[in-house]
């Protein structure tokens, strides 16, 4: 029994010992883990310190070598020897005694003059006091006393001056004794300082503490600890290109404008700023953290957080390009998107579409627009044949009662008219906007339909009316009214309908067929359900276009008629920060990562994939377009941004300041509405940016030249033809990038008796002028004109202007051709432009030469002589 007990207890001891050992081991592990395992940044910081130390050491060694190579060390030794010599000579031969003696004398004198100064102060005080009594009482005894005091003051001042002079003399003789030495000491100090600084830098680097580096943004209590690992991110000098040590790329754009100590990192890059325990956690690539790190170009999506207006924003180029897609596809037509509320319709007016197109074409188009042309913007709604016909019936019923087609394929076109039309087609440069046969067109910025098969789509009568006055059919269209005569238009219509035909078109209703009333009703319901009015103007649904229905994230309800008050699609104003649990991944069969960005991309890829009953159409976007659009949408957040970070758009600023945004007035507004200058040109912030800015055209251009140019546009910047990057040609060779000929000047503007060219010129000269641009340039009277011109020519050659500009046949083609500049530009503009080219065009490539006023006058006078004879 006793034996058994003993065995039992020794067994218990082993268990006790075992678990004690486990507990000890665990405790030690906890300490180790807390010190090192959970603080990997310590290793990074040590490593960075070592690398920086090595770099500084190298600098130091290099500096030492350089110092010795340039003989610095010899010179230093020499100086030190001289100093030692000066020191000995100073201490021997009575110099030191003399120095001491002089210093003592100087000190005495200084004490004396201090006493003197005090006496002077006293006397002045008394004088003022007496003066005060005298002015108060006017008693003569005060006057006497004042005179007495004045004499005293004079005497003291004299004495003081004498003392000061003596001091000066003594000071000079003292410095004469020590100057040699002082000079030597300063020189030695100076020679040593460069190396000493480097040494100090090394010492300072060694002293840097290994610690968590945190940026705390107080007002929203955001703490970013990214720099704990990214230790060199805002360093002045690259220490290592490896992560996490590298500097921020393009920091002159990003960090210089967003001081990291004020903005932190996660405002733009997202991620989990507080985490320091592992890369995955810090970068937010972990479960339950909804804001994974944004890197590379994707980071630009964050510009949208604060910048109201990103157009032209340096460093935001990618996201600016991406937002063009948003405009191209008109996402804002169905979804509420901040900043896009006032954008116009993407699609054409459909109110009288029955008078325009063939019924068969309309049905085919509704089934799948890309069957008609591959660059069609309109998405596919997955209608059945029956549904498509109902919608077409509804649309046709607004302007008629029949389904009808026209078929020109059997007719023989009038050859003469076709010939004339073809000439007009190229003269008017239709291909600048419209694509035909895969050539020309600009699908990115000015979106105009592909006309390759238009002959099988529209009828001749409509085309005639359209070309005569596009605004009559579609108010607000981008299509300009060319000033064609009726004869011209007839020939153009003949050319277009005969040349651009669809061989596969099957016109079924050449014999018109009555439309069924039930079908119209069904079509109208479909139009409302799928929100066609979002992009197209439809009779009786105009209101809905503006404020059509809202389906916030919860619940989809099909509102009808008067109930429609908000947009049809989900509000996108904060899609980029929508909580993950509010995104409905639903019935998706495919497995995608469970994050916001993947959700958005999948939605764009397969708009109706998440569940049944979704109405969003399929835009058939390319993967690159999906990525770009997703990047933009990801930037629409309602994240907590301090107001002081916000950069409102220009419109917003104007609104806040109560400034009315610029509006065209008078007859010029009529011309603009007709010719649509702002499709390409920008005038006072209105319009597009791929033709020259005309905001100050009145000050810039000469009247005669404008007249000439409008009559016969020519290329000013020849090189632009080869620059598809500007989005003018979307990569394909275009006919010729220059302004179309609008035939201005041949017709009178409505309700006036002035021609449109006169109106344009009048407006340019009245409105589009800048007070900064002088009408005339200063005149130099001391020099004859030919002398000035020849000086200007010399300057032109000297500064190498011809490497970019062309005169005659000589010179580069990057800048405008100057052969005819004397006829084109006003001298005042040239004069001002040479002073500061960036004033009127901030992103101009022209270098700033810093010309003096005289030089600018010479150059201007020279340039004004460059004229071509035009008849």
């Amino acid at each position, binding site marked *: 029994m006793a034996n058994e007990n003993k065995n039992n207890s020794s067994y218990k001891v082993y268990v006790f010992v075992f678990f004690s050992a486990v507990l000890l081991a665990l405790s030690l592990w*906890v300490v180790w*883990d*807390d010190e090192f395992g*959970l603080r990997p940044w310590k290793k990074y910081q040590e490593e960075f310190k070592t690398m920086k130390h090595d770099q500084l050491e190298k600098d130091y060694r290099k500096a030492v070598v350089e110092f010795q190579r340039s003989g610095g060390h010899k010179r230093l030794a020499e100086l030190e020897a001289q100093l030692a010599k000066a020191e000995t000579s100073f201490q021997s031969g009575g110099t030191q005694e003399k120095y001491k003696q002089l210093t003592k004398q100087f000190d005495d004198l200084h004490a004396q003059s201090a006493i003197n100064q005090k006496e002077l102060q006293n006397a002045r005080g008394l004088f003022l006091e007496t003066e005060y009594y005298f002015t108060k009482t006017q008693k003569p005894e005060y006057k006497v006393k004042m005179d007495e005091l004045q004499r005293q003051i004079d005497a003291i001042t004299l004495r003081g001056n004498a003392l000061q002079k003596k001091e000066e003399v003594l000071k000079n003789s003292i410095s004469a004794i020590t100057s040699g030495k002082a000079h030597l000491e300063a020189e030695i100090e100076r020679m040593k300082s460069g190396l000493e600084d480097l040494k100090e830098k090394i010492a300072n680097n060694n002293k840097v503490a290994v610690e*968590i580096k945190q940026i705390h943004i107080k007002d929203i*209590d955001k*703490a970013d*600890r990214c720099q704990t690992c990214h230790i060199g991110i805002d360093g002045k000098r690259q220490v290592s290109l490896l992560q996490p040590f590298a500097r921020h790329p393009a920091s002159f754009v990003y960090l210089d404008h967003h001081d990291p100590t004020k903005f932190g990192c996660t405002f733009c890059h997202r991620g*989990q700023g*507080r*985490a*320091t*325990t592992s890369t995955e*956690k810090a970068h937010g690539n972990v479960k*339950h953290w909804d804001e994974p790190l944004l890197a590379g170009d994707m980071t630009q999506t964050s510009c949208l957080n604060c910048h109201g207006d990103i157009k032209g924003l340096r460093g935001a180029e990618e996201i600016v390009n991406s937002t063009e897609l948003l405009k191209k596809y008109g996402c804002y037509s169905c979804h509420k998107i901040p900043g896009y509320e006032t954008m116009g319709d993407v699609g054409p007016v459909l109110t009288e579409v029955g008078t325009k197109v063939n019924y068969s074409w309309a049905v085919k188009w509704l089934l799948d627009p890309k069957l008609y042309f591959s660059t069609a913007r309109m998405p596919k709604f997955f209608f059945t044949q029956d549904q498509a016909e109902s919608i077409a019936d509804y649309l046709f019923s607004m302007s008629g009662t029949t389904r009808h087609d026209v078929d020109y394929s059997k007719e023989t076109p009038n050859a003469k008219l076709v010939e004339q039309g073809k000439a007009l087609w190229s003269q008017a440069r239709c291909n600048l906007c419209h694509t035909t046969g895969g050539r020309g067109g600009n699908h990115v910025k000015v979106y105009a339909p592909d006309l390759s098969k238009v002959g099988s789509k529209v009828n001749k009568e409509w085309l005639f009316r359209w070309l005569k006055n596009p605004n009559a059919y579609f108010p607000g269209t981008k299509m300009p009214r060319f000033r064609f005569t009726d004869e011209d238009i007839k020939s153009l219509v003949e050319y277009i309908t005969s040349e651009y035909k669809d061989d596969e078109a099957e016109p079924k209703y050449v014999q018109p067929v009555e439309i069924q009333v039930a079908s119209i009703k069904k079509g109208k319901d479909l139009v409302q359900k799928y929100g066609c009015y979002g992009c197209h103007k439809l009779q009786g649904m105009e209101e809905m276009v503006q404020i059509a229905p809202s389906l916030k994230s919860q619940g989809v309800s099909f509102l009808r008629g008067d109930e429609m008050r908000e947009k049809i699609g989900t509000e996108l104003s904060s899609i980029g920060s929508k909580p993950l*649990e509010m995104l409905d991944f639903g019935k998706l069969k495919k497995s995608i990562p469970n994050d916001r960005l993947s959700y958005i991309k999948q939605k764009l890829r397969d708009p109706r994939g998440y569940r049944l009953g979704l109405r969003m159409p399929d835009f058939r976007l390319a993967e690159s377009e999906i990525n770009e659009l997703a990047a933009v949408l990801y930037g629409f957040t309602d994240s907590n941004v301090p107001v002081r970070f916000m950069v409102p758009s220009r419109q917003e600023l104007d609104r806040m300041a109560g400034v009315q945004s610029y509006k065209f007035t008078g007859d010029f507004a009529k011309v603009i509405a007709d010719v649509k200058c702002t499709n390409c040109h920008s005038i006072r912030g209105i319009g597009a940016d791929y033709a020259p800015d005309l905001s100050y055209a009145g000050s810039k251009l000469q009247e005669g030249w404008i007249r000439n140019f409008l009559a016969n546009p020519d290329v000013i910047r020849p090189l632009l033809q080869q620059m598809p990057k500007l989005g003018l040609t979307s990569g394909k060779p275009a006919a010729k990038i220059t302004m179309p000929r609008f035939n201005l000047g041949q017709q009178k503007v409505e309700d006036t008796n002035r021609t449109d060219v006169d109106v344009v010129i009048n407006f340019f000269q009245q409105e589009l002028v800048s007070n900064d641009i002088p009408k005339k340039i200063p005149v130099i009277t001391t020099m004859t004109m030919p002398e000035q011109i020849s000086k200007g020519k010399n300057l032109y050659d000297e500064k190498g202007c011809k490497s970019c500009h062309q005169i005659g046949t000589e010179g580069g083609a990057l800048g405008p051709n100057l052969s005819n500049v004397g006829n084109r530009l006003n001298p005042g503009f040239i004069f001002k432009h040479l002073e500061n080219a960036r004033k009127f065009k901030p992103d101009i490539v022209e270098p700033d030469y810093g010309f003096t006023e005289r030089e600018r006058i010479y150059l201007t006078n020279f340039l004004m002589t460059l004229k071509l004879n035009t008849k």
Partner: protein
Amino acid sequence: MKRLPEITDKVKRNLIWKSIFRRDYRNNVRDRAQAIFGNVFLHLHPVQVRESAVKLRFTWGMGGITFFAFITLVITGVVLMFYYHPTIDQAYTDIKDLEFQVPFGVILRNLHRWGAHFMVIVVMIHMFRVFMTGSYKAPRQFNWGIGVFLLVLTFLLSFTGYLTPWDQLGFWAITVGTNMGAATPLLGYQGPFSEYLHITPYNDVRFALLGGAQVGGNALLRSYIWHCVAIPLISIILMFVHFWRVRKDGGISKPQK
């Protein structure tokens, strides 16, 4: 070394020593009993325990382990309170900081979190054991009652502590939990007969729990105060009664034979 007894003697005659330890301790039955009687904490416990009653296979030691878990939670909880602000802006980031930055924050928080789960499990096993051994029968029926209260308090501690990190898990748990309260008869606005008391969402029991009509800053503060102050205090008092009753009811219940 020779002077050691001298020093020991001097220390033991010192007033401070005497006032703390009161008497000499000679390892005999009487002194052992005196040591238990004379100590405010130990006197809650029976002076003598039968050998059969402490057999692990009979009691499983679950009551003691529960108490041990409770002490661990009090200590870690107090330290955690140094690093935590019960506001909706800071609560979650404070928890994150415990993980990322506070020295020994990870072990501290995990001890508290896992310790809480552990206590809930252990307390239920304790109840199970007491039930299966029939220890709820007379004369221990009062202590069983106390035990039931302590079980509920343990659950409430766990429930209120769940919201403190202010994460999705806690938020929805409290939302669901308090919505159940809204269905209480008479006192909840969705419960039966509540209309006779003029109960609305703004004066019912749910409102009292949340300090508002929905889970927000007030709910967080309330759950924090319940969790850190009120419920632990009540629990400690009941625990004293519980342990005292164990002694008074004849010590830990033992097997029939």
